[in-house]
C-alpha cells in the first residue's frame, strides 16, 4: 500500500495526526459531555423503566436526542485541529516544493498554519512572500469559519433548551 510506504523517521504526517488527535480530545469530550447532560433525565428514566441496561439507555434515549450535537462537538474538534499551529509545525516535517505533496502517511508534509508560522520570519513586509502568507491566512480563515458555523449551529440546537455553559 502506497499510503504506508517509506521509512517513518518521526517528523511526518502520521506523528502530527496522532498528536493532533490527542490535542482535540478535551474539546470534543467536554462539549459532548455538556450535550449529554442536556438530555432530559425523563428520557433516560423512560428507557430504564422498560428494563434497559445502561448501554441500551444510551442508545435509546441519549443518542437520538443528542446526535446532531455530538456531530457538532466533533466538528468543533476538527475546527480546533485545522487551526492548530505550533505542535504541527514542530512535528509535520515541513516539506517544501513538490515534496510537500505527501506520498505516504510517513512522509513529511505541511499545513496552512505551519507554512505561515515557518516562513513568516523570512518574509519581508510588503513583499509578495508576505502577501502569499497572509493569503494562506485568508484560506485558513474561510475554512475555519465554515467549520465553526456549521458546528455551532448543530451544537446550539441541542443546547437551546439547556442553560449549561460550553466552556471553550
Amino acid at each position, binding site marked *: 500500500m502506497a499510503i504506508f510506504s517509506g521509512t517513518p523517521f518521526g517528523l511526518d504526517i502520521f506523528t502530527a495526526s496522532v498528536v493532533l488527535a*490527542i*490535542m482535540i*480530545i*478535551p*474539546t470534543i*469530550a467536554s462539549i459532548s459531555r455538556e450535550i449529554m447532560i442536556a438530555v432530559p433525565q425523563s428520557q433516560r428514566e423512560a428507557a430504564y423503566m422498560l428494563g434497559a*441496561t*445502561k*448501554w*441500551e439507555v444510551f442508545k435509546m434515549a441519549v443518542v437520538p436526542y443528542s446526535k446532531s450535537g455530538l456531530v457538532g462537538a466533533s466538528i*468543533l474538534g476538527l*475546527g*480546533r485541529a*485545522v*487551526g*492548530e*499551529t*505550533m505542535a504541527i509545525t*514542530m512535528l509535520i516535517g515541513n516539506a517544501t516544493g513538490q515534496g510537500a505533496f505527501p506520498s505516504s502517511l510517513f512522509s513529511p508534509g505541511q499545513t496552512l*498554519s505551519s507554512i*505561515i*508560522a515557518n516562513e*513568516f*520570519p523570512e518574509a519581508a*513586509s510588503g513583499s509578495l512572500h508576505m502577501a502569499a502568507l*497572509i493569503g494562506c*491566512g485568508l484560506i*485558513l*480563515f474561510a475554512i*475555519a*469559519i465554515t467549520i*465553526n*458555523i456549521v*458546528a*455551532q449551529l448543530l451544537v*446550539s440546537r441541542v443546547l437551546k433548551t439547556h*442553560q*449549561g*455553559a*460550553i*466552556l*471553550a
Partner: protein
Amino acid sequence: MITIEQRAEFRKHFRNNISSRLVTDKIVKGIVFGCVLLAIVPLGSIILEIVRNGVPVLSIEFLTAPPGAVGSADPGGIGPAIQGTLMLIGMSSLIGVPVGVLGGIFLSEYGNNRYGNMIRFFNDVLAEFPTIVIGLFAFAVIVLTFGYFSIVAGMFALSVIMLPVITRTTEESLKLVPVTYREAGYALGIKRSVIILRILLTSAKSGLITGIMLSVARVAGETAPLIFTILGNDDFFSGFDQPMDALPLRIYRLANLPYDSATAQGWGGALILILIILSLNVGVRYLFLRKRGGGGRFRITAGR
C-alpha cells in the same frame, strides 16, 4: 383489548436475554473505560515528562538571567520570557476582562433578542477560532500600521482571544443566578444597573473567576499569534515599541535548537509555564473566593 390468555401468549415471546445483554453492557463499559485511559495516559505522561525533564535545569540563574548566545557554554536563562508572559497576561487581562465581562452582562441581561442571539452565535464561533488567524489580524492592524513589532500588538491579539471565553462564561454564570434575586431587587425599587453590579456580579463571582482563569490559562499558552506580534528577542522589557519575549515562544525556539542544553531549557520553560498558570489559578481563587470556605473547588485548567 388484550385478554388474559393473550397476555400469557405474549409473555412466551419475551426472551430471557438479560444475561447476554448484560455481557454487552459490560463489554461497552470496558471499551469506554479503555478510551478514558487512552485519553488520560498522554495527559499524565506530559505532566510527568515535563516535571522529570524540567526540574534539573531549575536554578535562580535560569529564572532570572537573559538567554546566552546560541550554542555557547553558558545557556543563560529565561528571565525575559517569564517577564514577557506575566506582562502579556496582565495587559491582555486589562482589556479582555472588562470588555468580556461587560459583553457577558449585555448578553445575559439585555441580549434576549435577535441581536443578542447573533452576537452570542458569533462569539461562540470566535471562541473556537484558529489563533494563528487572530495573530495575522493583529499583525495587519497593529504591526503594519505602526511599523514595529511590540508587546502592544501581542496584548491586542491575546485580548481578542480572551474575549469570547470571558463573555461566554460571564453570561452563563449570570444566567445561573436565580431570577428571584433580580425580582427581589426590582421589588425594592433598586435601579437595574445597581442590581447588576451589586447583586448579580457578586452572586456570580465564582463562575466569573473560573471563566477569567480559563481564558488566562488559554492565552498564557498561546504561541502562534505571538510570532506575528511580539516577535521574540533576548532582552528584558525595554519599551512598548520594542519586540518582547514570552515563555511559549521561548520554549518553541529552544525546542527547535539542535543543542541538548537548549532542549533541557525548553523543558524547564514548560514546567515554569505550567507552574505560573497553576499558581495564578490557585492564588486568584484564594484571594477572591476565600470567604466561601470552599477550599476544594480548584479546577486546574492547563493551557492548550
